[in-house]
């Protein structure tokens, strides 16, 4: 078992080295994530119990379990290469910042690479607790009163970790911990781009916190751009 791991790691290192030489040019996968059907209407968040947050909004915000845009675009979908690509190698030195502001998480879905630093910041005038409900990783739970320094953490296993603040039950987010460095999160347009892919056969996975995952297989032969679209079925509840 162990020797296999070592072997795999060796391959990964070799592949990473090869990539470093062959990159940056390569194939690209891009596309759009949309939904069909009628998504459940997101509830307006009642922040009356937390006036310091409520006053930051002129119109009360709604929940973010499903965020959509024009043309049935679906936001907050993590699209990544789940198989075929070499591991991302060592984590990027740059930390991913996860901000609590107005009793919401910014970004709603934070994508990290395994062992990449996560910085959790509280910009609110109230205490939050950051509670990632990890299964594969360690489940921890830390309090962060106003004015506290940023919390720095890492996750060492691939996992989509729901994160919540127990004090403010509407606060839900996700730490998407990935092995790969090839990922994108859909934004306003629902579009994504995964550039710099060396030739190979890839499995692309799209993950959405409410609608689950979808995968497609894509083969890259050279410097082409392949179009891949995902359509999620909206659940009415």
């Amino acid at each position: 078992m162990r020797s296999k791991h070592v072997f795999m790691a060796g391959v990964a290192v070799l592949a990473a080295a090869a990539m470093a030489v062959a990159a940056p040019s390569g194939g690209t996968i891009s596309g759009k994530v949309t939904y069909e059907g009628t998504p459940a209407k997101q509830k307006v968040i009642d922040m009356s119990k937390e006036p310091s947050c409520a006053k930051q909004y002129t119109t009360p915000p709604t929940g973010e379990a499903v965020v959509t845009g024009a043309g049935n675009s679906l936001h907050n979908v993590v699209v990544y290469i789940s198989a075929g690509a070499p591991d991302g190698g060592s984590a990027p030195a740059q930390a991913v910042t996860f901000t609590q502001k107005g009793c919401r998480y910014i970004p709603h879905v934070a994508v990290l690479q395994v062992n990449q630093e996560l910085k959790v910041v509280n910009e609110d005038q109230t205490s939050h607790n950051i509670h990632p409900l990890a299964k594969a990783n360690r489940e921890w739970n830390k309090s962060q009163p106003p004015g506290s320094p940023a919390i720095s953490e890492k996750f060492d296993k691939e996992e989509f970790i729901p994160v919540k603040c127990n004090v403010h039950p509407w606060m839900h987010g996700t730490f998407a911990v990935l092995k790969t460095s090839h990922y994108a999160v859909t934004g306003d347009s629902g579009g994504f781009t995964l550039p710099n892919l060396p030739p190979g056969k890839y499995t692309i996975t799209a993950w959405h916190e409410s609608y689950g995952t979808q995968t497609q297989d894509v083969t890259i032969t050279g410097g082409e751009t392949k179009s891949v679209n995902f359509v999620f079925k909206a659940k009415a509840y």
Partner: protein
Amino acid sequence: MKTKVPSKRLLCLSALAILALPSLGSAQESHIGKLTGHADSGKQLYRRFCIGCHGPRGDGQGENAPYVTPQPRNFVAATFKCRSTVTGTLPTDEDLFNAITRGFNTTNMPSWAPLTEQQRADLVAYVKTFSERWKNEKPGTPIEVPAETPVTLESINHGKELFQKLECWKCHGPEGRGDGPAASTLTDSNDQPIRPYNFSAGTRFKCGTTNQDLYKIFITGVDGTPMPSFADVIKPNEAWDLVHYLRTLQVSRKGPESDLLKAHGGAAKAADKSGK
């Protein structure tokens, strides 16, 4: 006869060696003080005492799990409430031993103090075999609990100030009765409703009875529940102030904190900023 003895011995030795191999991984053993617990003995005890709630696979899905709130601990997830170690890390063997010995107040988990220490150590060793984490990770480093500061009125008052500043009251309520504004919405990590601790209801905490235990609870957090760790946000001497104030919320308990407060009119004043 004589010739047989050495061969027998050899056999024993080699048998021992074979037995020793799998136990090289420390997950098969526990060490509490001078005691060494063994998972194989623990397995039989687990079958006898624990299986009804925690289940044959240790996943907290025993035959009684549907009727038990809060749910029995899932040892496969290896998230433990009462630790001396920082949040998110594995507890020490001693933490698990103490948890088995103490039981969990206001849950279905009784105190297993009637079992011998050896039996409890064996159980700790076996409980650790349910999760791979015990093979891949080391237990966290126990937090340091500095010497307790004197119980003074200033300390209690400052503790109350912290109680408000850190927003403990949001869950535990302004008088620690477990009735804060967020109390009704709280869920544990299995999405089951959970109540915040009601300080006025008794004298025991989930993770012990002493001031040191109380100190550990909010510094390490109660993993798997909404109770977070305050390790990064409270300084040690302030933590003792909070301990002293929290003790005064245990209205059914007689103690130096409550006595002192009573002697000074009975109510802590958070506004007192006495140089802390």
